[in-house]
């Protein structure tokens, strides 16, 4: 700051920054990307450790014996499911009652805005069944949840079987201090959403549900179980929830600790951990794992039934059983013991999980990158925007050098003075801003009279594309020929707007913010009306939010080692958009409105600048 109070040095600094602006920006961009890639490098990351004392030092012994019986229950469940052709509510109620639980049901119904083609549903009606195991001598103030979705077909029967088996076993134990709620939810996320809304008596998405009859107080933690085979090779932990929220890292640590203790292979993002971090393949493996997490988090959708709990400040994760062709198998008893151990530790909690991190990335299950380490990567990208803004500000503040013919008319001089610049600029800045946002609103408004998914998606894309043609034509009609000052002011506003937008996004959902910054920052940095039009327009379109999404789809498939052809990728792209709209209207995911209402208009401003003249 002493630097700034010396006018000479200030001038020197500013001239340095403006003169070297482009190279500094390039360096920052490279450094940001390099920093981000470095995050996956094991020596740069921290080992996970249990922060919560109540779960760390206490010993528990796992004794769950009845894996076989749980599988038999699962088969019985499957038979009843087939017979009823859906959720066997009566059977579940009876079975849970026989296990000594207080059993309640909840009916819900929801009409989707348009048919969901992925899951083939439109009018959804279902019933959730849950049983509460009352802890002895506990005043019903705290509860834990174990849930298993009842999915159509042959999936997930083992999960329900194990859930019932655990219920029976837990019922006979004396050490519970928190009520345990065993929930079987129908229609996966929709059922879960209905149950959670019923439990907390909120209605954020306009769903119809019958009120719950039994409760267990404030829910401290929840696990969702997905298990579709009798034996498994590994257990996968899914953390990413709605809007990129993550559960407390201690929950992941707990899972990892028990996998280690019991000797079950555990994965995250379906990827096993490797020890050869110093080899190229080892490094690329952890980059892939981390990138998968980033992509999933950026999507803002819940990647398991646990994802909806996070809104209610309930730490939750989904545990998925994976059965691949490996030799080493674990049976249901082992998984039951693992869950028993986890629940006993959660039962020991005195406070909600709060000791460990809420913002983190995981390049492997045993290592994590905390917010303090990954934020600089984003900061380096964001600083480019500030540098460009500074550059523009300086350009606008200093009068243009009179090099042309020495007769710079006083008009432009007055205009360029910072105090007076705004009056003619207001209209020329405001018009594109308003028009871009109106276009954004047009994309965001749900055009649901059309009842076909593809129609909805294609309408959105059409409006999006039409938006490209709209603003730069209309603004010329309204405010005449754009001036040199005009685009600079507009760009200054646009760059600062983007900086604020990305900054806020990155604070809430780092991955989304970073991916958007990665594509939008170069656009914001280089675009002027003076660059070659055709080439720049092409680059601009390539780096637009929609194309970013398209590339992300391909990249995600690539990371999952399931590459797709272009046509399939395009279909996937369309379904991702429709899922985004559905996630928004069903669960309140914010990514679609964010892109449509804020990011896309912001990008349109840059598009506008390109076609200023």
């Amino acid at each position, binding site marked *: 700051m002493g630097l700034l109070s010396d006018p*000479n040095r200030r001038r020197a600094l500013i001239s340095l920054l403006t003169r070297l602006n482009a190279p500094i920006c390039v360096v920052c961009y490279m450094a940001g990307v390099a920093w981000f890639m470095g995050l996956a490098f094991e020596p740069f990351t921290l080992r996970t450790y249990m922060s919560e004392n109540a779960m760390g030092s206490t010993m528990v012994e796992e004794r769950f014996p009845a894996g076989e019986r749980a599988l038999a229950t699962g088969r019985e469940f499957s038979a009843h499911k087939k017979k009823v052709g859906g959720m066997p509510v009566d059977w579940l109620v009876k079975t849970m009652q026989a296990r000594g639980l207080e059993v309640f049901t909840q009916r819900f119904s929801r009409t989707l805005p348009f048919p969901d083609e992925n899951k083939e549903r439109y009018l959804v009606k279902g019933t959730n069944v849950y049983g509460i195991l009352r802890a002895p001598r506990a005043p019903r103030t705290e509860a834990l949840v174990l849930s298993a979705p009842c999915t159509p077909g042959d999936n997930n029967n083992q999960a329900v079987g194990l859930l019932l088996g655990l219920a029976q076993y837990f019922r006979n134990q004396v050490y519970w201090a928190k009520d345990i709620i065993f929930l079987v939810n129908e229609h996966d996320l929709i059922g879960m959403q209905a149950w959670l809304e019923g439990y907390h008596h909120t209605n954020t998405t306009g769903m119809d549900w019958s009120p719950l009859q039994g409760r267990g*107080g404030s829910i401290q933690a929840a696990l969702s179980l997905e298990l579709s085979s009798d034996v498994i090779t590994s257990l996968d932990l899914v953390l990413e929830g709605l809007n990129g929220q993550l559960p407390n890292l201690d929950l992941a640590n707990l899972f990892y600790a028990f996998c280690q203790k019991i000797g079950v292979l555990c994965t995250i993002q379906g990827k096993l951990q490797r020890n050869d971090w110093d080899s190229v393949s080892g490094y690329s493996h952890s980059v892939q794992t981390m990138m998968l997490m980033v992509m999933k988090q950026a999507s803002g959708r819940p990647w398991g039934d646990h994802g909806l709990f996070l809104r209610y400040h309930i730490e939750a994760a989904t545990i998925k059983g994976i059965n691949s062709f490996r030799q080493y198998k674990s049976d249901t008893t082992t998984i039951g013991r693992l869950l028993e151990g986890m629940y006993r530790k959660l039962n020991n909690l005195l406070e909600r999980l709060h000791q460990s991190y809420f913002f983190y990335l995981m390049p492997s299950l045993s290592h994590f990158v905390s917010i303090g380490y990954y934020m600089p990567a984003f900061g380096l990208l964001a600083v480019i925007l500030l540098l460009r803004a500074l550059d523009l500000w300086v350009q606008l503040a200093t009068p243009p050098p009179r090099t042309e013919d020495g007769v710079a008319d006083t008009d432009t001089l007055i205009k360029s003075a910072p105090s007076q610049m705004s009056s003619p600029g207001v209209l020329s800045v405001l018009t594109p801003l308003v028009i871009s946002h109106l276009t954004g609103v047009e994309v965001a408004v749900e055009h649901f009279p059309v009842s076909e998914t593809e129609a909805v998606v294609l309408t959105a894309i059409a409006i999006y594309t039409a938006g490209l043609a709209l603003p730069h034509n209309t603004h010329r009609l309204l405010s005449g020929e754009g001036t040199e000052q005009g685009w600079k002011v507009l760009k200054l506003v646009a760059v600062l707007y983007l900086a604020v937008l990305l900054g806020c996004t990155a604070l809430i959902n780092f991955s989304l913010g970073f991916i958007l910054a990665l594509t939008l920052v170069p656009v914001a940095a280089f675009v002027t009306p003076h660059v070659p039009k055709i080439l720049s327009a092409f680059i601009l379109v390539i780096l637009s939010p929609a194309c970013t999404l398209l590339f992300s789809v391909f990249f995600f498939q690539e990371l999952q080692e399931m590459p797709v052809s272009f046509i399939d990728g395009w279909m996937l792209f369309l379904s991702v958009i429709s899922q985004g709209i559905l996630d928004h209207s069903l669960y309140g995911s914010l990514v679609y409105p964010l892109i449509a209402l804020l990011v896309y208009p912001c990008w349109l401003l840059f598009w506008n600048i390109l076609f200023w003249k």
Partner: protein
Amino acid sequence: MKVHISATGIHMEADTSTPETAVPSSVPQPKDDFQEELVIRPLHSGDIYASFQFRTLWETDFMRGNKVSHYRLFPKSLGQVISKFSVRELHISFTQGYWRTMQWGQPFLPSPPGAELWVWFQDSVTDVDGTWKELTNVLSGIFCASLNFIDSTNTVQPSASFKPLGIGNVTDHSFLRYATLPREIVCTENLTPWKKLLPCGSKAGLAVLLKSEKLFHSSFHSQAVHIRPVCQDWQCKTTSWELRQTLNVVFDLHTPGQGKREWSLFKMFSRTLTEACPLASSSKIYIDITDNPQGEQFEVSPATPLLSQAMVLGDRRTFSVYDLTQQITFGTVRSLNLLIRWKSRDMLRPLLHGERYVAGYGLQTGEIHTLMYNNHPYRSFPVLLLDSVPWYLRLYIHTLTVASKGKDNKPSYIHYQPSKDRVRPHLLEMLVQLPPNSVTEVTVQFERALLKWTEYTPDPNHGFYVGSSVISSLVPSIVAMDTNSTREQPLFSSFFPCKEESSYFVRVYTEPLLVNLPTPDFSMPYNVICLTCTVVAVGYGSLYNLLTRSFQIDEPSPGLAKRIANIIRKMRGVPPL
């Protein structure tokens, strides 16, 4: 078989019994009297409910000028408390667990989770708040409990819900204090002082069964002490002090054995009975066999021919009675070990029950929902709802709604006392008519206050407790109730005085709430201090500098050589360089 019948209102149905009238009439009436009683009731859920009641009656006057100094059965520690603090009525309960009305029906004596204390003072007390404070501290010592945490922030004066249960119709509720500590954990250290108040201690009589390793291995445990003045006779010519010590416990049938549902005194308490307390005038065990008229649900052994009927909670119940003062009860092995074998079980719907929860998400606002169920098929009845909410949940009383069956249900009486931050809690009392077969929902929104950082508990992320709401009501009775309170009845059926025949008094407690408040990260202050200081020192200082000063480029000061040269030139009279 010989059976003892005192002058009772109990209808004996035993044909073989022959009355023995010698005991009460011939002996000169002692001024104090001790009775003990155990009721065992198999619950519908399959659990088993055991309720102990010990009653000491003493015809004395603690309030007289001369101090009462000779104590026989009445515990001296409590007697001194009564006279020192001019207590008219004292009710204290310690409960671990929540009474599950939906599974278990109504308890004989309701109590909320945690500790509850309510006291009526004599109207001679001038400084009620000061006396209350002292009293709670003394009781805290007597019962080894954290009652000293009762202060003005959790004490209320209910206007209608807690009427005196003994004689005297005081209506000035400025002499009443009510407080709960929902977080209080009850364990052995509270049981031991409680047992010491009994005349026989835990040496003889029913108290032998009170072993903490078994009592705290249950689904519900509640112990209470009630002191009140009662009438000795029908005309209420003489009054006496009644000390009632009760202990309720529900054993989980499911826990230890799987398969065979079978209980005995030994399995429940790991003891059997060998004798009554020698100081007791009556010592009985009642077993509720109402649901089991033909013995198809369970069977009791040893069987007793002695049956008794009593009106309890609006219902006529039948009990098997075992009189411990009779040697014959103990049989040949000189020990009594009751055994119950179950055969089946089902569920029930209590006439009145309530539940409560916090709705909403986020740490700014929330909504308290209280649900009151009237399961009576055709009768509506009024209930008094008492809510005492700590000040850090700021109730928005204008959002209070009461609705039954989707319609607005206007309370006929509302008493609301707003909270004062850090001084007193919210008190909300209202009289609501519950329509038959309905759910009445009371909702009120609140805002979560940000506490001062020293006000947080050591475990702030656990959340903060809000005590149970209290629902008091006169519930329509199925059978005519007995309104004569002085007639001798089993102790469990005579606690709440019954004023009319057609209804009976019930008090239901809802669950306590656990509410999370916005909690700072307590490792942060250090970081915050560092950061703030840095920002203030560096950022603010220089920015202020930049904004308030104007900067100009100074001529650089001349060098030393130049200055010396100038001095010489000055001396020479030549203009300086």
